């Protein structure tokens, strides 16, 4: 029974990801006074792409073709360890923050390899940029995450969420900083404005798009889906760690229903904030990104310091 719920939760995660992307697009369009596409548009895109005949370059090796499957499955595995609507699942034993970061790193590794594999200038450029950014983003992310895990005294996500739930509403300076740091990192990692623009193919600015420029058909569909999944993962992470209220603690059907409603509401809200931010802020120059990420790191560091200095027992 428990395993069934765990599998269902993962499936739900994967299925809902394109919906979140659609909702985000809808919000952005409305904010920019444009007519929005249907909320289900991302599903239709994925369907259409997967029915198409993929075109693969002659220079491509087996790596190029395997990479999308690896990327998607790594991201899907990461999704399976993050509590979505209920804590204390059997998967929670491996629901470790570091495992999750590891899955992300794995997926990114193959994505950059695939970008290099084909030998075009854009692919290489995108890979190099992606690596630059992620090498700066990862420490900042870990810093923020460690602040949380130090409070909860565990690196287990499920345990951390349960800890925050048990404690009730406690205003912690360290959480405020960690939240800001994690939001900044999430924006950089998922390739949103102001770090990367997911809708552009302008050669000088693109990062993520440059790497997947050569993909088509079902391969492209898988990669797109994986990146939508990643966006949702970060959203769930932020929503459930900092504002875990509403998440189900038992497997009763009523609780699970409330948990689902709660996470949908939280994600919808987060997407609105993201849409507003993306509408207001301009994309920054690539060379400013390191400044942005070092600020995120600074925030994470201050969060950890304020945990040690301001909150620790004496």
């Amino acid at each position, binding site marked *: 029974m428990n395993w069934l719920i765990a599998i269902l939760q993962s499936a739900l995660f994967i299925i809902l990801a394109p919906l979140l992307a659609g909702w985000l697009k809808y919000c952005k369009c409305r904010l920019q006074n444009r007519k929005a596409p249907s909320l289900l548009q991302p599903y239709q895109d994925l369907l259409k792409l997967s029915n198409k005949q993929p075109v693969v370059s002659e220079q491509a090796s087996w790596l190029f073709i395997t990479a999308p499957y690896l990327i998607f499955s790594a991201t899907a595995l990461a999704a399976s360890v993050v509590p979505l609507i209920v804590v204390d699942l059997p998967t929670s034993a491996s629901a470790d923050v570091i495992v999750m970061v590891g899955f992300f790193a794995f997926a990114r590794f193959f994505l950059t390899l695939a970008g290099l594999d084909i030998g075009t200038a854009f692919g290489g450029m995108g890979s190099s940029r992606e690596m630059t950014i992620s090498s700066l983003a990862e420490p900042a992310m870990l810093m923020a995450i460690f602040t949380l895990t130090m409070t909860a005294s565990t690196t287990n996500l499920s345990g951390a969420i349960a800890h925050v739930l048990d*404690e009730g*509403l*406690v*205003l*912690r*300076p*360290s959480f*405020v*900083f960690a939240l800001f740091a994690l939001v900044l990192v999430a924006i950089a990692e998922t390739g949103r404005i102001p770090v990367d623009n997911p809708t552009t193919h302008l050669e000088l600015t693109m990062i993520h798009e440059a790497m997947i420029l050569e993909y088509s058909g079902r391969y492209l569909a898988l990669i797109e889906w994986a990146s939508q999944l990643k966006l949702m993962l970060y959203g769930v992470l932020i929503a459930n760690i900092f504002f875990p209220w509403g998440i189900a603690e038992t497997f009763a059907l009523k609780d699970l229903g409330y948990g689902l409603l709660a996470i949908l509401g939280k994600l919808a809200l987060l997407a609105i904030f993201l849409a507003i931010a993306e509408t207001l802020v301009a994309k920054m120059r690539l060379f400013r990104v390191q400044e942005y990420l070092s600020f995120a790191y*600074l*925030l994470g560091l*201050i969060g950890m310091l*304020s945990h040690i*200095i*301001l*909150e*620790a*027992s*004496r």
Partner: protein
Amino acid sequence: MNIGQTDFYTQAILSLAALVGLTSFLMLGQSRLLRLIFVFALQGFLLTLTTSLAAYSLGNPHLYISAALTLLLKVIFIPWMLRREVLQMNIHRDIQTLKNKTMIMLGGASLMVFSYYVLHPIVQNTAPVMLNALAVSLSVVLLGMLLMISHRQAVAHVVGFMSIENGLFFAAIVATKGMPMVVELGIAFDVLVAAVLFGIFFLHIRSSIDSLDVDLLNRLNEIEK
């Protein structure tokens, strides 16, 4: 004492203290004047929040007056005045390159550690919350001084000066639940007069050296040129 065991007021004060400290750091690394002024206004706003919170939770109505004064002076009047000055001088597009930005930031961090060190003897007698609040406010004072040293624009100096006042005010609110009313009114009056005088000075400096770059004020020196 773990933070989970303290009351909500203390938690909120600590969070605000951390944010006030953060705004000081943000100001230190800021190279655009308008953004600097914005962060300064933000700090004033956090201060207003702190004061209102203290007034509410301690049931001390005179702190509401201080909060209103802070809002008027530090969030509205002074930022407005500085902003107008910057726009008039047309220096809002200038990016001021900070020499050794890393060194300045590291210096700021060590000043923060230093404040903890200086105030550590206090901890034996009082709640750790007080030490934190006092140390954060002392570091805001010291960071304000560092801001004045590292920036060259007169506007940045004024921001530094006023953020020093902010730090002191924060200490007064948090550690001692506000000073006696007369003293607070006196301090607010001094700040107001200082702000007006700064306005007059901008006028004078501008007419004498045609810039607000304080580095150009270098005629008086012990070494004869």
